């Protein structure tokens, strides 16, 4: 008993416990993703639920994506114009803005924005359903909760993330045009010509692949955190939902940046 208590408080035991929990959670998350993926195609009824989620994740995010995309593009336009003018290369502003957005900032910032807007609400929704026995109710009605709650969200995320990313990129380029051309007097024709000349298909497809990966990451992490709200050790009830929501957003953001680094290394 005394031996047990000692080992419970030793740092090595804590480290071991944390490692085991991390490995267990990672495995559980992959199984969760696998089940959600398979159940996307489980019935025709999934289509109707998916359309609702496309509206929630996609359509309702357009305003925030427009706003963030516009200001991001405007800031890049200003900063790049300053940097390029040092070398007398203002003419490359269009290419610099477009490549930064399409290859890097578009997918990452879109994913982070959707994590804050839709990912947090996915976690909270499923978390509240968990603590109010709605998930148990689905199980006793022989309705798979992962198929019912998570699969439509996953399918909708896979559809919405690339579209919103493309929209972000376009609005961002327009923002760069506003500052680089209209405000600072750059040449309009050169701005768009450089975008066309320097942008390759691999840049676009790289950004597209990134957005797909981020969609899977954000949806899986957000739904997983909500689904297992009741197993949290740090809180119970409504506090557990809030902790799960915070953990979902933080973990999603970290994984987005981690995945971004790995994908950038592999793709470009």
């Amino acid at each position, binding site marked *: 008993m005394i031996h047990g208590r000692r080992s419970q408080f030793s740092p090595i035991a804590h480290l071991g416990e944390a490692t085991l929990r991390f490995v267990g959670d990672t495995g559980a998350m992959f199984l969760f993703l696998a089940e959600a993926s398979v159940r996307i195609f489980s019935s025709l009824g999934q289509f109707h639920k998916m359309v609702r989620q496309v509206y929630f994740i996609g359509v309702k995010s357009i305003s925030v994506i427009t706003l963030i995309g516009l200001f991001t593009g405007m800031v890049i336009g200003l900063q790049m114009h300053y940097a390029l003018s040092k070398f007398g290369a203002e003419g490359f502003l269009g290419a610099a803005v477009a490549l930064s957005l399409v290859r890097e900032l578009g997918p990452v910032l879109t994913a982070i924005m959707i994590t804050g807007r839709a990912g947090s609400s996915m976690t909270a929704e499923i978390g509240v*359903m968990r603590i*109010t026995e709605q998930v*148990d*109710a689905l*199980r*006793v009605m*022989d309705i798979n909760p992962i198929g019912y709650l998570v699969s439509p969200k996953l399918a909708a995320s896979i559809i919405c993330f690339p579209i919103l990313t493309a929209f972000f990129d376009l609005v961002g380029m327009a923002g760069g045009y506003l500052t680089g051309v209209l405000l600072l007097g750059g040449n309009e024709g050169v701005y768009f010509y450089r975008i066309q000349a320097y942008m390759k298909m691999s840049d676009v497809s790289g950004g597209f692949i990134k957005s797909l990966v981020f969609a899977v990451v954000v949806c899986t992490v957000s739904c997983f955190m909500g689904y297992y709200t009741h197993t949290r050790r740090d809180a119970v009830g409504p506090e557990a939902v809030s902790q799960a929501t915070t953990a979902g957003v933080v973990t999603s953001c970290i994984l987005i940046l981690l995945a971004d680094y790995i994908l950038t290394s592999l793709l470009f």
Partner: protein
Amino acid sequence: MARDKTPDILLEGLTVGYGKTAVVSGIDAVLPGGKISVILGGSGCGKSTLLKHILMLHPPLAGRIMIGSHDLNKLDRRGKHCLRQRMGVLFQDGALLGSLSLGDNVALPLREHTRMDEKTIRERVLDKLALVGLDEFYDYYPNELSGGMRKRAGLARGMVMDPPLLFCDEPTSGLDPVTAAELDQLLLELKKSFDMTMVVVSHDLDSMRAIADHVVVLGDGRVLFNGLRDELEATTDDYLRRFLDRQAAARTSPRLTMPALDFNVMKRDCSKYLGEV
């Protein structure tokens, strides 16, 4: 023992709990088919835990549960799916899905498990909602209903597949006496009309006296009583008598021996605003 329509539920050497922690051990009982069995006990004694194990939400730590001729430990995945479709459940607060209207909530099992067309589903849902007096609330959302209405809606959802087994978790808790009595009456009518096996988890003695044919009393992590309601009423066991007669355990309340709160310790002097209250 097993009848096709109204199966018995057999609990044999059953230990239920979470993880490695046993909540109730050594449960041996038969909940008879076609009757209302009430699982009774104080708060936190493991009533709902036992119910969740019977509903296959958690595996038992030891022992077995038989529903009709089916041993839940031996039933394969598909068998469990099919058995769940023959069970109706009323959760403590109804557990209706907040994003769906009442009609859609009740229709959910039909849409998921049957090939009925929408017109037939709607008619059937309206029938079940009429059964619990909520047919006018088809398009309402759960947050627009009172606690009693949510429970009745949960009952309609539990009944929509015409299951031979109905489980109710604290159906009368949090309801006023009239609404609680109405719900009890409804359960009796359902048993009479549909010949169902019902298991009701409750700590409401009035409700137990109104509906129970068979009673299982839990306490101290074990079964304290298992038998007919009349046998329970006639018991001479001290604990059960206190429970049934609603007598508090003899104890010296520390509240009565503590000095009263000195109002000088209050941060705000309310006597300025209220005078001496």
